């Protein structure tokens, strides 16, 4: 395995984790709709218990996404997390609140009341996808940072007092520490596109996972609303992406330059990513339309045979393929995946920000465990979902 191959391989793995994370945001999507999917306390509890059996997967994927980035592209970890401090902190706060809310919300003695914890779940359901989407958008839109490795050996900075210049290599070039990203309308557009995609996935998951006609009917209505909003935002961003300039780097010299229509060129030169993107989008739409027709059938025809379309799967797989294609387009083909709007040459590429060949090789061997991990997740998931969740189970079995 050459160093170049390992860099591409690890960008693929990180992108795959990112794509799986976006799919698993169905937990957040459904939680953001908990008030409108459940018409009473018991209905809301059913929705929360449905996502409550999966929230740990989303959480763990987020943590592993961070860990994989740290191991494979430490300069990104250092620059983005240390620079866009507030953006990441708000994301983390919302996930901390989510992590405890499932367990605490219906427990005797929870001090804050069930509604407070349900509010936390809704808050994470909105803030999580919007800001994670915004963070992903910065892979295309850029961020305001400077990388200067020489700071580490700047004698003046070393010997100065603590509160002046620190010998830090990655610096954010403004004082907003990541919140400035939200001033870019395209970051916001992409963030909300991810949010509405999460809602689509959330409604499809609930329809597939919950055995309750009323909740499923409500979910079907929310599905169409979210789909319209998602399509408008996603198509707008995709057109913007294909027409915008991108940051390219010379693989020999490492010099970074601006290239018009860079992402369009990437999709044309890496045609297989374009195919992946198109298949992904088609699958997303196929799942939505299939569920819409299924819902319509059940509403209009009491003898409708198709009671369960399992549309979460084509839409979910489509989501993974679409996001994977976008993230690979951001980093492959000599593209700077984390452009710096403050200093062109500070932009991060998979070549200048990755770990050493030894570490990438070692971690590549570790990554061979991933199929095994996926296999036991699938087995356990199927066992837990062998019977659809209903109100009776919530009343009589273990439940949040």
């Amino acid at each position, binding site marked *: 395995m050459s160093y170049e191959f390992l860099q591409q391989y690890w960008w693929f793995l990180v992108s795959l984790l990112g794509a799986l994370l976006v799919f698993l945001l169905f937990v957040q999507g459904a939680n953001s709709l908990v008030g409108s999917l459940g018409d009473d306390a018991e209905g809301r509890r059913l929705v929360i218990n449905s996502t409550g*059996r999966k929230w*740990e997967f989303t*959480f*763990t994927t987020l*943590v*592993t996404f*961070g*860990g*994989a980035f*740290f*191991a*494979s592209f*430490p*300069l990104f*970890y*250092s*620059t983005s*997390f*240390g*620079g866009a*401090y507030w953006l*990441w902190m708000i994301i*983390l*706060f919302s*996930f*901390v609140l989510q*992590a*405890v809310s*499932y*367990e*605490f919300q219906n*427990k*005797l*003695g929870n*001090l804050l009341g069930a509604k407070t914890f349900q509010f936390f779940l809704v808050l994470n359901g909105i803030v999580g996808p919007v800001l994670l989407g915004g963070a992903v958008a910065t892979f295309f839109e850029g961020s305001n940072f400077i990388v200067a490795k*020489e700071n*580490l*050996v700047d*004698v003046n900075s*070393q010997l100065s007092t*603590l*509160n002046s210049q*620190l*010998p*830090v*290599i990655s610096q*954010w070039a403004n004082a907003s*520490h990541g919140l400035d990203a939200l001033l870019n309308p395209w970051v916001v557009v992409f963030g909300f596109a991810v949010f509405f995609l999460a809602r689509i996935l959330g409604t499809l998951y609930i329809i597939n996972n919950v055995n309750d006609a009323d909740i499923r009917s409500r979910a079907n209505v929310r599905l169409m609303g979210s789909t319209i909003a998602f399509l408008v935002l996603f198509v707008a961003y995709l057109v913007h992406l294909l027409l915008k300039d991108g940051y390219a780097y010379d693989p020999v010299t490492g010099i970074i330059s601006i290239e018009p229509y860079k992402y369009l060129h990437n999709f044309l030169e890496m045609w297989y990513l374009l195919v992946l993107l198109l298949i992904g989008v088609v699958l997303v739409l196929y799942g939505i339309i299939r569920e819409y027709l299924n819902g319509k059938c059940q509403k209009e025809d009491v003898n409708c045979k198709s009671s369960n379309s399992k549309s979460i799967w084509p839409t979910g797989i489509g989501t993974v393929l679409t996001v994977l294609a976008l993230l690979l387009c951001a980093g492959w083909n000599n593209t700077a995946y984390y452009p710096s709007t403050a200093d062109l040459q500070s932009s991060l590429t998979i070549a200048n920000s990755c*770990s050493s060949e030894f570490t990438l090789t*070692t*971690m590549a061997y*570790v990554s061979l465990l991933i199929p095994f*991990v996926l296999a*036991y997740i699938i087995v*356990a*998931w199927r*066992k837990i979902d062998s*019977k659809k969740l209903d109100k009776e189970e919530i009343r009589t*079995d*273990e439940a949040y």
Partner: protein
Amino acid sequence: MTHYLLSIDAGVVDWSRAQFALTAIYHWLFVPLTLGLAVIMGIVETCYYRTRKPFWKDAAKFWQKLFGVNFAMGVATGIILEFEFGTNWSNYSWFVGDIFGAPLAVEGIVAFFMESTFVAVMFFGWKKVSAGFHLASTWLTGLGATISAWWILVANAWMQNPVGCEFNPDTMRNEMVSFAEVALSPFAIDKFCHTVISAWIIGAVFVVAVCCWYLLKGREQKLAIESMKIAGIVGLVASIGAALTGHQSAARVAEVQPMKLAAMEALYNGGIDQSLTGIALINPFAQPDYEQEAEAPMKIAVPYALSILATNDPHGYVAGINDILNGYTKPDGTQELSIDEKIERGKLAINALAGYRQAKFASSDDGSVASAHLKVLQENMQYFGYGYLRDKSEAVPFVPINFYAFRVMVGVGCLLILFFMVVLFFLYKKDITTAPKWLHWSAIVMVPLAYIASESGWLVAEFGRQPWTIQDMLPTWASVSNLQSSSVIVTFFIFLALFTTMLAVEINILLKQIKKGPEYQS
């Protein structure tokens, strides 16, 4: 003499340290109970699997409910810790991310998914999977948590004893050269054994305390006795194991972090035949005047014990703070440089690196200048981190915290061995239900004491390493992110409020659940 409270820097470095310490301390309130309860509830469920008696199933479900309440908080605080390496210690993340990131990634892939997958089966799968599958899920949840502990402790051990890496002047960072050395370093193995075994004690103390409360109230006697039999044995074995692994850890610290050992012992001037201080009168808020004082005042010590602890030899040599500051000759005859000399050589290394980088990018250099700088860098690289120190006193960790925390840990640890012996005596030789009430109450009192001991262990590990984030390689002020201190202050207080509130909620829920007791299906 430096007054500690006046020397706190209000800047981003100390606020970042405070935030990380806050998160780590809270995280360690939940993790040991998770690790400890995982073992006990695993054994309880195994009893159910073997006997198929409904009692054991009800008992397993009861302990799993308490486990679940605690588990969520461990998960919530854990995510913050991982990301804080990036958000607050971004320079660190670059300088050693090539090595440090790997264990965290492996932890995510190997351990977190195992935990998160099987914990859902454990909670919700009683009616959905076979008894064997459920039992496997319960054990795999605990195993996942333990594997997670392994990798994060590998990462922490590497900060104490950086091995398996080399500095690359072209990338300006340390790079891993041996994964085996990092993952299987003796320091990591000792740390894992000592930490995980001490976590089992917390689980055992918690279970015994809950059971004793039931006995005080005269209810759930069968659950209490059967659970105590398991927890008592786990607790005694773990307490003795913690003492043995603790000794091994201390010997390792003496070898690779002599300054930490000197601070733990308030040993100002070392030598052979060193005694272990039982207690001494040290101002808890001020750094002692180690340069002027011969030894800590009012010192009561056990002869030769420190030499045995550190070297397994009653006549072994142990270096004191002043020896390390001024340089000393090791028992093998090699000379350890003074801190001033290390600072000078560290500065040489830093300047050589700067010179190498300039020469490398200068078109006029034919390579000879860069090579000369590289030679100087390589000769002095092991002292690189010292080049960031401004004064030798910065190399001394804050003695009182290390001194008292070490004594609290060891003292309570010894008390725990005695406690579990008494509990097992009453369980097997007497009738624990009619045991004196002080025994039942002492079990409840042991819960906070065990936690204090456990946290004290971490205080020694982390305060003793100061001023370094990575021992001898990178001090805290060269590891931090370039943030305004106001940002870190705000997030510090948000975390403080959030974690404190959630801790109060968790404790209240646990108390209510315990008061409610198990739900018997049988």
